[in-house]
């Protein structure tokens, strides 16, 4: 019975507390980190802007590592420029490299937007990036209209993880571009760090609801493009700048995520960090609707309810039926998942949503906030998870424990089709549910002395 109590207990979001084990890190060093660095989050956002080339202001390695990391996940071109700091740059400042870098990006890529992310190096030596941008614009010799739009995000990796970098960059983009003239009929939606498949789904859903919308950042195409037979220097797709400007005229905002947003159930004590939705609300008085990532029926219902209110329309038939089929699937497969224990990790927004979903289907989630993989591995000895639900980096734990890993989120470096994994809404939940159920059934079948043919 104690298990059941745990499942319904809200504090179980940071489990093990319930099992009486401290979640405090016992090692000074981070051992097999779960988190990545802030400029990676920034790069993901910039890849969701139409015509944008990211520039990482720092050493060459930052850009190259992030490119490699993203290419391995998305299997798509990810061109990110670097201002390529040398020893001299570090001593005398990065102005010259910055200008050279921007000029070379313009020559090679002809971008409409250049998204600049700082690094721990450029922040520590006190680089004045807004100053560099002004300087560049003042000395630009080409036609004024060929000057790209600049977006500058402060993303030193010693302040938070890639999730902070991501949110900071969404905010920086909105602050740079959003203008308010009037209130239009469109909705602005910030879906957070989700997959290209999720973004395509949200766009389809909003269209089915008949809601005009601006979705930011939209890398549904830029990071999951069709075969083009050309190497598109800047892949097609992304949220266009003119749309970003109109975010200030939205009638409402929806923002997924519960870590940074003060409106939902968790408040991250990160000081000054405001979300893009909060900023639009406080600056232009546009109602922000913060909500957790819609994973599971309850969270998706909340999302659909908000869309109903905003549009004045009922849930479209297609989506109502998807919910119905999902309930039907929950009923048909409830026994395979009930009472099972899942090890979770990843970005906090993602994990809290996944944990809520786990509880919705009777799975006990286990997650330690801020823990690295080695800590999770060690604590798994006590928790004894039945399966792992997370990105591919936890594979070694699943392998050691001989339990299934259901790959979700980012990064997935050891499987194919990561950009097409769908997590959100009734349809995404259905896909997740099917995968989890089948992984557990397969596990049982593989470990059975009898090779049975029916469930």
């Amino acid at each position: 019975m104690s298990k059941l109590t745990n499942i319904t207990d809200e504090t179980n979001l940071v489990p093990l507390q319930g099992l009486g084990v401290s979640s405090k890190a016992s090692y000074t060093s981070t051992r097999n980190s779960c988190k990545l660095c802030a400029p990676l989050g920034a790069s993901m956002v910039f890849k969701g802007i139409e015509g944008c080339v990211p520039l990482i202001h720092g050493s060459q390695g930052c850009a190259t590592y992030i490119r490699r990391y993203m290419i391995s996940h998305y299997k798509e071109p990810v061109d990110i420029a670097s201002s390529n700091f040398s020893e001299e740059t570090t001593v005398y400042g990065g102005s010259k490299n910055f200008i050279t870098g921007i000029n070379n990006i313009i020559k090679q890529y002809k971008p409409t937007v250049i998204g600049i992310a700082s690094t721990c190096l450029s922040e520590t030596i006190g680089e004045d990036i807004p100053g560099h941008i002004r300087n560049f614009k003042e000395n630009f010799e080409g036609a004024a209209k060929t000057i790209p739009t600049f977006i500058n995000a402060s993303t030193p990796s010693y302040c938070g993880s890639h999730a902070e970098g991501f949110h900071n960059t969404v905010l920086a983009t909105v602050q740079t571009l959003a203008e308010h003239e009037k209130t239009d009929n469109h909705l602005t939606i910030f879906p957070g760090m989700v997959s290209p498949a999720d973004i395509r789904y949200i766009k389809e859903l909003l269209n089915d609801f008949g809601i005009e919308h601006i979705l930011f950042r939209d890398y549904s195409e830029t990071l999951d493009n069709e075969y083009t037979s050309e190497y598109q220097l800047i892949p097609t797709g992304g949220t266009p700048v003119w749309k970003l400007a109109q975010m200030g005229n939205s009638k409402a905002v929806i923002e997924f995520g519960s870590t940074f947003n003060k409106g939902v159930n968790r408040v991250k004590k990160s000081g000054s960090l405001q979300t893009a939705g909060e900023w639009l609300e406080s600056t232009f008085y546009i109602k922000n609707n913060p909500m957790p990532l819609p994973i599971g029926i309850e969270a998706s219902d909340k999302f659909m309810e908000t869309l109903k209110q905003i549009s004045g329309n009922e849930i479209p038939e297609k989506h109502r039926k998807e919910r119905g089929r999902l309930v039907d699937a929950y009923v048909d497969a409830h026994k395979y998942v009930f009472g099972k224990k899942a090890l979770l990790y990843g970005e906090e927004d993602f994990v809290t949503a996944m944990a809520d979903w786990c509880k919705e289907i009777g799975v006990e989630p286990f997650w330690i906030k801020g823990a690295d993989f080695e800590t999770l591995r060690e604590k798994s000895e006590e928790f004894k998870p039945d399966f792992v639900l997370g990105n591919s980096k936890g594979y070694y734990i699943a392998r050691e424990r001989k339990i299934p890993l259901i790959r979700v989120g980012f990064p997935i470096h050891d499987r194919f089709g990561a950009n097409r994994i769908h997590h959100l809404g009734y349809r995404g939940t259905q896909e997740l549910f099917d995968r989890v159920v089948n992984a557990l059934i397969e596990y049982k079948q593989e470990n059975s002395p009898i090779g049975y043919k029916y469930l």
Partner: protein
Amino acid sequence: MAHILDERQKQVSMAGANERTIDCNKASLAGSVSQRACVFCGSRVVLYPIVDALHIIHGPIGCAAYTWDIRGSLSSGPELHRLSYCTDLQERDVIFGGEPKLQKSINELIDLHNPKAAFIYTTCIVGVIGDDVEQICRTIQKERGIPIIPVQAPGFQGSKKDGYKVACEAIFTLVGTKSKPYTPAKSINILGDFNLAGELWILLEYYKKMGVHVNATITGDGRVDDICNAHNAALNVVQCSGSMNYLAKLMKDEYGIPQMRVSYFGIEDMSDALYDVARFFKDDDMMAKARELVTEEISRMMPALAWYKEKLTGKKAAIYVGGAFKAISLVKALRLIGVQSVIVGSQTGTTEDYELIKQLCDEGTIIVDDSNPVELSHFVKEKQADIFIGGVKERPIAHKIGLGFCDHNHERKEPLAGYEGMINFAKEIYATAMSPVWKFTK
């Protein structure tokens, strides 16, 4: 060549007697989107396969996260190298210094793993805030009685190649610090094979058959004790010369150990690697065994290679890899199966490497140093390449344009070195060139 930035024009040329040799050994150009990484990366990939040492990164989390288990370097024993340790510096550490955190981290991890040695990598940020990493290493080395080696690798202090040098210096601090009771006279060290997909073990088998004792395999399935004893070998056999030449030079200067540059890719170079070693030891019996081995392997694989050659003749390949010496082997290996190399480039090649490529390749072959996606995508279109051979970052360039691709980098899971590797290579080139999916991309 309008798609090549002015400052980079001299880093591109063609094969042919009258063509100029390209510039190289230059810092990457800001904004060019170089495929290179940084000093830290260079040092990390070289030291990574030392499997019984701790590898601790003093810096921000990204540097550690992006290099966690990055190379498929296999170990026959301990797997400490596959763990990613990082001091994960935070704002307060940057302001007040990260020394206490580093000191504590090293001590705790030594307690946890009891390693043979520890490599402490410094990153950009440490280079700026000025933590005295060397002092910390000295102190802990004294207290704990194992080598604690600082690897000074702030990313901005050069390119990936400079990181190789830093790694060589770090390894060199171990060399000569211990002598095993007995090291056979006819023994070699293997430098610059990273045991990707177990390639090193294939080579060990060959040398064993020839009666050569392999003393230390420094950069693949590497062991601290073997490296400490590396000065007792008679010869350093160096592959991936871009990374390991410097260590060989240091060992030659200090211990008088001669070095030999080899490659294990393709039949020609693989066979030369064995013959050259036998020749070095002036041992007829060893040479006879090498001949026997080579003959046997070649006669076994020739029918298969002839079959591949018949199918693949006329195909054109683009090569863009980390080191130019590998590119040279690839040109030869591809030629063996009827594939012509039309673009050959590398991140870190030297003037000598590029000169060799210029002589080796057919006239008109594009030769390029420190290239980028804009150039490479233009080149493959211009030269109508069918196949691209590179690493992870080159794959989308190939695939978006409709070229086959062969990963000849960290991520390969099938050995491509040795005779067996040559067959795997032919198989992979065939599979990627002949797939029926290309009918949908035309």
